[in-house]
C-alpha cells in the first residue's frame, strides 16, 4: 500500500529551489489539497514574481503569471469572470505580497474577494540575492543591512496577518510554518481550510507560511529550520488571526 507519493497536481519537473528551501514543501501541500478536494480541473493558480515565479512549471492546474505584486488583482479578475466554475489561488512571497503588492493585497482583503492566498514569509528577498524585505526582523543581517536591520532607519517588519485582521473584510487568516512534521501537518489543514472556504463561497482566505531561506540566511537547511523556531516565531506568532464563520457560529 502506498502511504506517501508525489501528488498528481504536482508535475514531474524538478524544482529549481535551493537545497532545503521550504517552497517545495508548501508546493506539495497545495498540490495535495487540490488532489484531496478533486479540483485540479477547475483550479487556476496565479504565480508571483520572486523565487516562486516559475511555480507554473510545477503545478498541473492552469497557471497565470502576474506582474510583480499584482497576483490578488489578477485573481480577482479570474474569479469574478467565472465565479461558479473556477477555484483561484495565488502563491506569493513576502517581497511580492507585503512590499510592492501591499495595495492589491489589502484591497482584495477589504473587498472580501472569494480567493485563496498562500503567502510565503521568509523574511528576505530570495530571488534577487538576499536583500532586506518588509518582513526582515530587527537586527537581521541581509545584503542591504550588513550591520543588521535598524528599525530607526528602516522601520519595523510588517505582520501581515495581524494587520489584515483589523479589516472587516477577510474571512480567514492564519499563520503556520513548515519547520517540522507536526507544523507541516497543521499547515496542510490551514491550506485545506482556505481552499474549502473558497468552495463554500465564504470569501478571502490567506494562509501565511513562515518559510526558510537557507541560502540567503547563510545557514545550513537544518540551522534555518531552527532559526524559524528561535527568531521568526517569537516575532510572527503562529495561530488563527481571523475566522469569521467560526466566530459567528459561537
Amino acid at each position, binding site marked *: 500500500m502506498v502511504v506517501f507519493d508525489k501528488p498528481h497536481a504536482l508535475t514531474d519537473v524538478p524544482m529549481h529551489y535551493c537545497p532545503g528551501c521550504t517552497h517545495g514543501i508548501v508546493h506539495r501541500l497545495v498540490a495535495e489539497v487540490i488532489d484531496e478536494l478533486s479540483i485540479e480541473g477547475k483550479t487556476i493558480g496565479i504565480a508571483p514574481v520572486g523565487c516562486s515565479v516559475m511555480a507554473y512549471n510545477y503545478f498541473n492546474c492552469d497557471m497565470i503569471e502576474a506582474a510583480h505584486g499584482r497576483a490578488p488583482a489578477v485573481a480577482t479578475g479570474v474569479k469574478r469572470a467565472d465565479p461558479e466554475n473556477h477555484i483561484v489561488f495565488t502563491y506569493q512571497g513576502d517581497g511580492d505580497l507585503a512590499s510592492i503588492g501591499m495595495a492589491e493585497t489589502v484591497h482584495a482583503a477589504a473587498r472580501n474577494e472569494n480567493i485563496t492566498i498562500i503567502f510565503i514569509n521568509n523574511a528576505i528577498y530570495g530571488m534577487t540575492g538576499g536583500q532586506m524585505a518588509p518582513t526582515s526582523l530587527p537586527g537581521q543581517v541581509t545584503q542591504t543591512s550588513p550591520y543588521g536591520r535598524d528599525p530607526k532607519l528602516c522601520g519595523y517588519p510588517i505582520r501581515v496577518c495581524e494587520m489584515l485582521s483589523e479589516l472587516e473584510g477577510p474571512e480567514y487568516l492564519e499563520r503556520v510554518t513548515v519547520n517540522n512534521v507536526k507544523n507541516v501537518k497543521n499547515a496542510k489543514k490551514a491550506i485545506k481550510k482556505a481552499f474549502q472556504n473558497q468552495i463554500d463561497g465564504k470569501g478571502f482566505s490567506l494562509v501565511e507560511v513562515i518559510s526558510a531561506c537557507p541560502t540567503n540566511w547563510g545557514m545550513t537547511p*537544518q540551522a534555518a529550520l531552527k532559526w524559524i523556531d528561535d527568531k521568526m516565531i517569537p516575532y510572527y506568532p503562529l495561530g488563527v488571526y481571523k475566522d469569521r464563520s467560526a466566530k459567528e457560529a459561537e
Partner: protein
Amino acid sequence: MAKLTFKTDNCKGCGLCVDACPKHLLRIAPDKINKKGHHPAEITDPDACVGCAFCATMCPDCIIKVER
C-alpha cells in the same frame, strides 16, 4: 515491512529527511553523487523502517515514495 523509494536524481542533499527520521535510518551518502552533483539521501537499514513517512513529509523535492 515498509519500503522507501528515492528518486535519487532529483535529490539536492539538503538532509531535512535525515533529521526527520525518528529512527535515524537515513543519511546523505558520502560516496555517491547524482546527476545534479549532490550527495543524495539513502536509507542505511531498510528492514528497520516502519514507514511513518516523516522523511517524505519534510522532503522539499518530493523524491521519497513510501509503501507499507
